[in-house]
Structure formats: C-alpha cells, structure tokens
C-alpha cells in the first residue's frame, strides 16, 4: 500500500480577485499531516488560518481561486476537482468540527433528526439510524443518549453540543478532521474536557487532525506540529514543543510572550505596536508582511517573500536572515511599586454581604415563582489605587456585581459603599459626585460606542452634561489629552467607531471613562474579544493609568493569567458567591477552594501535556 500523507498543501497561494485588484489571502502555504497526527494552525483572527479550513472544504466564494500550488488529500489533488466531487468527500472522508457549537446545529431540528440526516448520507439504513446515533452519542460520553436525540440544540449546553458535533464528525470514520477553534466559545473547564475528548476519539479512530486555534499554548499542548500564521503567511513551522519552547520568528515570540503566565516572575508584557493588517490592507503588502511591526526589521524585509530557514530538526522559520540572529531584550519584571497595596485611606468601593435576587419567570399557570440569586452575600473592598480581580465563568454573577457597583441594579440586601458613602441614602449633589467617581469600561466596544458619534465626541461625551460643559477649544484640548493618555493616534478624532480597529475601540472606551477623572474603573471582560498582541497593549495601558493617575480598578475576567498580571488581589466567583478571595499570588499558588483549583488546572499552560503518542 502506498503511503501518502492524509493532507498535504504544497505551495498553495489563494487569491481573491475583485476587478483588477487581486489580494493574496494565502501565500505559498505548505504543510503535511500524517494519519493519527495533529497539526495546529495558530494565529490571531484574520491570519488566514480559517481560510485554510475553507480551502479544504472547498466552500469559498467564486471570486477566490487557488493561483498556485496543490492541495493533496490522500495523494489526489483537490484544486481542480469539481464541486460535486469535493462535496462527496465532505462529511465522509473529511469532517469538520465547527467553532460555535450552539449555532452550528439547526435550532428547529432535533439532535436525532440532524444526526439521522448525516447517517442517511453515510448510507445507514433508516431503521438503524436512531440506534447508531445513540451509540455514537454514548461514545462521546453524553448521558442518556436516547433522550438526547429527542432534544433540540437550545436545550443543550455548549459543551454538549460540541460533543454531538464531534460524534457526528467521527461517525463516518474520516481520514481528516478539521477543527476550527472548537473550544473558543466554551468555558475553561469545558474547553479542557472537549480537547481531551477530541484527542481520545482521534486515538480511537486514527484520523489526522488539523486544529485551528488562536491559543499557542493550547496548540503546543495537544498538537504534534504547529504552523504559525500571520496575515496569510505561514511564518514558522515545527514540532509543537520546539516552537513553544524556542520560537524563532519575532511574531511567534511575541505571540508567546504577550500572554501573561500563571506562574513564574511577573514580567512586563512586550506588546507589539499596532495590529495585524486586515484583508483589504494585504493588497499593498509585498515582502514580509510582519515587517512593519517587527522590532528587528531591515531593508531586506521589504523585498520578496522571505525564504524558509531550517533552525532545528523539522523546525523552520520564514524570516529574512537578519532576524535569525537577533534576540529580544529580556522583558523587565513588573516593578514592585507598580501594584499598590491598600493604604489607610477609606476604600473606594466596599461591598458588605450584598445580594441581588431576581424574581424568576412565572410559570404558565402560576407555578410558584422561584427567586434567582444572581449575587449572594458578596463582600469585597477595593482600596485607593488598588487593582482587584473578580474571576469566574460566564453566569457566575460577576457582571451582576458590576451592575450593582454602577448603580444599575439595587442590592436586594446588604450594603454597598462608594468612598465610604451609601449611594442609596446620599443626597443629590453627593450622589452625583459619587457616581462620577466610578466609571465603567464595557466588554463589547461594538455595543459600547455609539456608531454615530466620532472619537472626539465619544471621549468627551461626559462634557455634554450640565455642570461639566466647556467651550469648544477646551473640549478639543480635553479630547487631545484623553487620546494621548490612552495611546490613540492623534488623527483619529474625526473618525467614527466603524473606522477603528478593535484595540482602538477599546482605547476609546477607556478614554471616555477617564474624561471626568474617576477614582474607580470597573472593567468587565474588556480584553476577552481581543487578540493577544492587542490584549497586551491594553493591559499595559491599564497598568500605566493606575501608576500615573492613581486609579483603582475592579477587573472582571474569566482569564486567570490576565488577572494575575494586573491585580494584587483576586476574588473567585462561583454561582453568585465569592468562594475564595485573597492575595493573587497566594490564591493562585495555593488555591483552597475546589473550584479555584479546577479553574487553574483547566488552563492549557498549567496542565501536564496530553500524551502526544496517543
């Protein structure tokens, strides 16, 4: 029997033609995946990694074409193949595990019907389909598979949906599985379990897996090999452990180094300037596309696509020669004085046994209304200049705490003090002052910024309120101060949010909150939607603001490493309660509550690597 790699890309260049302008979405991509092996494609959003997935599926818009190279599946070139022939492979020999498990299943069809549809296509006779589907659901450890088949997607959790989808993917015993960010939409603990399941099924059926992910640590842990993507190029490729341990390309290094760690010394994150160019900006970019952001670029980078260099066993990097020798200066430790310890002054925020209960939805015929405790007897203080982290999964009640602090909800019981005053009993002028001293930075900049206001109007919005109104030149001066403080380019004032990048939007969001010089910022998951290099920029900005303005921060996040980087104290929330609180280093080093432990264990870089031989 001839042995081909299951999948081999050989110098694939993908072009999108719009009139006379063509954009190279993928440039000269080559890699192979053998049976039973896992390749990780790593990069930030827009790097072109999902484009490879779409290329394999053949589901590309008609204006996209492969301009060069071959796409070999089991030795046969797929590029010239008809759509029908490609479709015949999909779901049978090539299976996909999608990114958003909850929306990847049709909401109006039961799990059983969708599974049966798939089995029907695989040629399973009608009467056997339910049994076979149930067997498969049992194989992915779903409880009560028969009952599961009768249910609809909205009745399942994200993790359960992903199990169903993994079961469907493996049910045809495919040679190749393409998993596109299969765990991104899930909670940390579920993420770990799903990855384990994927590996387990792979070991059982021996398929080749292409794992597309933004998480270098995750890729390093579960993959045999990784390829790092940047703006349509593969910049580095090699054995997973080697790439993570000794990355060569400046981009891979920054990708690794801009993620805060859960252990070891705390170092200032080296943040690359700017952001990866968007698809439309690729047209004018010849040569090395990373060069504009590269700390060690030189004239050679601008010419042609850099050649591959062998830097270790099977470890190759695509970079101009000059870069290869260069090294980043080692990152500085976070200076001691940077994170302030609570002082003697009164706390800017104090919560004493605060609860927030909602009346539950009433049943159809007056079934008793249960109250839902979104927040239950939470106590928390934030001192002046202190950064406090509030950690938990979605639905743990951490956003409700933010709403309570902001006065958007009234506590059902307990006491909430702002700078030592109870806002519920404060008189109007005091209340206004208290409210102004607490500002929020919202999670989703898309929703937090009025799309019809420009940056100037957004960052100085607070000056439209009576009592703060100033004349136009003063407002301009304020706007310039704010964009300088938050590191926005000087020419962005007349732009509207849709003309800004994700990181810039989040900076505007922060600038707006800083306008009336608050004492406390409440930041609710403000970096969760950002790519790691931009995340590092924003985190460093927050640290600088704390240092320069003495602002306190209540930082709400699900990401433990980010909380460790920013905050001196942490509170862990689980089902509306704070289950553990204390000094960040102490809590993360010696977690006492079981939930904190499972959170920490689920983080990819903190787990013992999955057996790669699998």
């Amino acid at each position: 029997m001839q042995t081909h790699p299951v999948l081999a890309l050989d110098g694939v260049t993908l072009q999108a033609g719009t009139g006379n302008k063509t954009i190279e979405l993928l440039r000269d991509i080559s890699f192979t995946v053998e049976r039973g092996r896992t390749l990780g494609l790593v990069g930030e959003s827009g790097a072109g990694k999902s484009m490879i997935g779409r290329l394999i599926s053949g589901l590309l818009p008609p204006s996209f074409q492969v301009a060069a190279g071959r796409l070999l599946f089991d030795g046969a070139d797929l590029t010239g193949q008809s759509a029908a022939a490609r479709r015949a492979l999909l779901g049978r020999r090539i299976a996909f595990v999608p990114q958003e498990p909850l929306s990847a299943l049709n909401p109006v069809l039961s799990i059983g019907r969708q599974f049966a549809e798939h089995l029907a296509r695989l040629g399973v006779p009608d009467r056997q389909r339910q049994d076979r589907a149930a067997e498969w659901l049992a194989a992915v450890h779903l409880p009560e598979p028969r009952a599961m088949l009768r249910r609809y997607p909205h009745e399942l959790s994200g993790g359960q949906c992903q199990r169903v989808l993994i079961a469907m993917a493996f049910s045809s015993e495919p040679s190749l599985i393409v998993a596109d960010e299969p765990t991104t939409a899930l909670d940390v603990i579920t993420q770990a379990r799903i990855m384990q399941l994927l590996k387990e099924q792979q070991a059982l059926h021996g398929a080749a897996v292409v794992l597309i992910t933004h998480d270098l640590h995750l890729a390093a842990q579960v993959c045999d090999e990784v390829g790092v993507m940047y703006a349509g190029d593969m910049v580095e490729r090699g054995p997973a452990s080697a790439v993570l341990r000794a990355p060569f390309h400046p981009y891979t290094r920054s990708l690794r180094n801009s993620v805060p760690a859960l252990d070891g010394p705390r170092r200032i994150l080296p943040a690359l300037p700017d952001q990866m160019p968007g698809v439309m900006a690729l047209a004018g970019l010849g040569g090395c596309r990373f060069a504009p952001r590269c700390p060690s670029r030189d004239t050679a980078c601008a010419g042609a696509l850099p050649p591959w260099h062998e830097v270790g066993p099977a470890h190759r990097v695509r970079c101009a020669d000059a870069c290869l020798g260069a090294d980043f200066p080692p990152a500085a430790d976070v200076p001691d004085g940077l994170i302030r310890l609570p002082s003697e002054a009164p706390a800017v925020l104090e919560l004493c046994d605060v609860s927030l209960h909602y009346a539950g939805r009433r049943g159809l015929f007056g079934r008793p209304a249960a109250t839902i405790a979104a927040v239950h007897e939470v106590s928390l203080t934030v001192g002046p200049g202190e950064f406090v982290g509030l950690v938990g999964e979605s639905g743990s009640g951490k956003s409700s705490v933010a709403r309570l602090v902001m006065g958007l909800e009234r506590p059902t019981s307990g006491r909430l003090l702002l700078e030592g005053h109870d806002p519920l009993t404060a008189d109007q002028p005091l209340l206004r002052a208290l409210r102004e001293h607490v500002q929020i930075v919202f999670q989703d900049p898309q929703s937090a910024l009025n799309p019809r206001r420009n940056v100037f109007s957004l960052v100085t919005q607070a000056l439209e309120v009576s009592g703060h109104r100033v004349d136009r030149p003063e407002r301009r001066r304020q706007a310039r101060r704010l964009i300088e403080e938050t590191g926005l380019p000087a020419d962005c004032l007349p732009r509207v949010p849709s003309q800004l990048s994700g990181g810039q939007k989040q900076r505007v969001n922060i600038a707006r909150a800083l306008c009336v010089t608050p004492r406390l910022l409440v930041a609710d998951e403000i970096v969760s939607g950002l790519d790691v290099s931009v995340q590092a920029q924003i985190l460093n900005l927050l640290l600088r603001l704390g240092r320069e303005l003495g602002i306190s921060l209540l930082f709400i996040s699900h990401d433990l490493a980010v909380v460790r980087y920013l905050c001196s104290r942490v509170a862990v929330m689980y089902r509306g309660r704070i289950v553990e609180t204390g000094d960040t280093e102490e809590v993360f080093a010696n977690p006492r509550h079981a939930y904190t432990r499972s959170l920490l264990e689920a983080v990819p870089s903190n787990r013992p690597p999955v057996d790669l031989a699998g």
Partner: protein
Amino acid sequence: MSGWQSALRAGKVQVGLGLLIILLLVALLAPVLAPHDPREQDILNTLTPPAWDAEGSAEYPMGTDSLGRCILSQVIYGSRTALTVAFAAATGSMLLGCLLALVAGYLGGKTDWLVTRMVDLWMSFPPVVLSLLLMVGLGTGVRNVVLAIVLVDWTRFCRVVRSDVIVTRRRDYVTAARLLGFSHLRTIIREILPAAAPLMITMFSLEMGIAVIVEATLSFVGLSVGADVPAWGVMIADGRGYVHQAPWAMIAPMIAIFAAILAFNLLGDGLRSALDPRLRTSRI
C-alpha cells in the same frame, strides 16, 4: 453623513425621487397643465374616447367621463389630493407613532405594556375597516381623511420603531450615556433618536404610499375628500359604472395611483437598503 450620500446614489432612490418630483410638479402646476377645469361638465361630450381613438377629439386628450368632464384634467388635479393626503397623513402618523414608540420603548415597564396593548387593540382592526369606521364617524373632507389615516396607521410606526428603540436601549452606549450623567430626555435625543432616524424616514416614505392606497380606497367607497374634489379613487369608482362603454376612463387614474405608490415604494425601499443594510424587511 456618508449613509445619506450613498442613499442618493442608489438607483431605486434616484428613480423614486425622479417619479416623485414629476408628481410634485404635476400637482403644483396643475392649473397650467390641465386643459380644463376638472369640475367643468360638457353635456354634449360625454364618454368621449381618448384622442388617439378615431372618435376622440384633441380637446379631451384622455376622453371624458359620463358627465363630460375632462379625464386628463381630473387626473392632474387628483394628484394634488393624493399628495396632500399622503404627506400630511404620513407626517401625522410618524409623529404620533414614533412619539409613543420612543416613550414606550425607552421607559419600558407599565408604559410599554399599555402602549403595546393599544397597538394590539388597533391591529385587531383590518386597517380598511377601521378607516372606514372613522370616516363614518368623522364625516368626509381632506382633513378628516388625513386624521383617519393618522389614527389608523400610527401603529405601523409605533410597532416597528418601538422594537428598534428597545434594541438600541439595550446597547451599552445608552447605559454609558446614563452613567455619564445624561438626563433621560438628552439620552433619547442624542443616543436613541439618531439610531431610529433611518428607519423612521424609510417608513415615512412607505407610509406615503400606503396613504395613497387608503385615500383611493376611501374615495372609491365614496367616503373621502368630498364630492367636488377630484380624486383618483372617485374616478375609478365612477368609471366602474360604464366599464363596457368607456373602459379607458379608468386607465388613467389607475396608472396615476400605481405611479404614486411606486414612487414612494422605490424611494422607501432604496433608502432602507442604503441607510441600513441590516434592516430586516420583516419588521416593516
């Protein structure tokens, strides 16, 4: 704003505007354009066929009706009635509907409940039936037609704009404005109203088309602007009586009605896709 510029460049908007401008000119220049007084009866020339017919005469380019009135002149003057009613009724129902929608959608709670129930109650009347009832109650006349249409069609604006306001209200930037110390009124005017404006303008255009239909319908039944005001619906209703002898008498007002509605629909549809491509058709 770039949205408005791209709207003006959209083909549908241009054609719709063009048609509308022609209609407006016809209405404004009616005394100049019309060969006759639309009410003038020529007893000797009843049911004259149009000019291109062998028996037609150049004096009545589109022929005459059973009372010997010039059909072309009636159609020309009818555009005044149609456009007046369309513009006034659409303005009225937009103001009433959007005001209630903003209040209900922004305040929520009991106010919202009450307004929603009102809309539900109104929506359980077929619009034609309700406007007919109102005309019975109010009596004929241009002002009453406008009033009747406003009282029927405010619900269209209210229903759609309210759900839009609710979507906007949930956006964080509205909460942010409140947290910065904006008053309710200021929040509505600066943050919520601009978001609803494209929708309101689109609906305004479509509503003008609907007003033309309702006016024609009411005229047809004989409960509209009154006996001596030329109206397209009345012409069709009259023409129905002698459809075998003079089928042409109905064609001109039919084309007029169609052209007016088409102009408003093209304009509205074009604005909708240009101002907000994500706008769902189902909501209108």
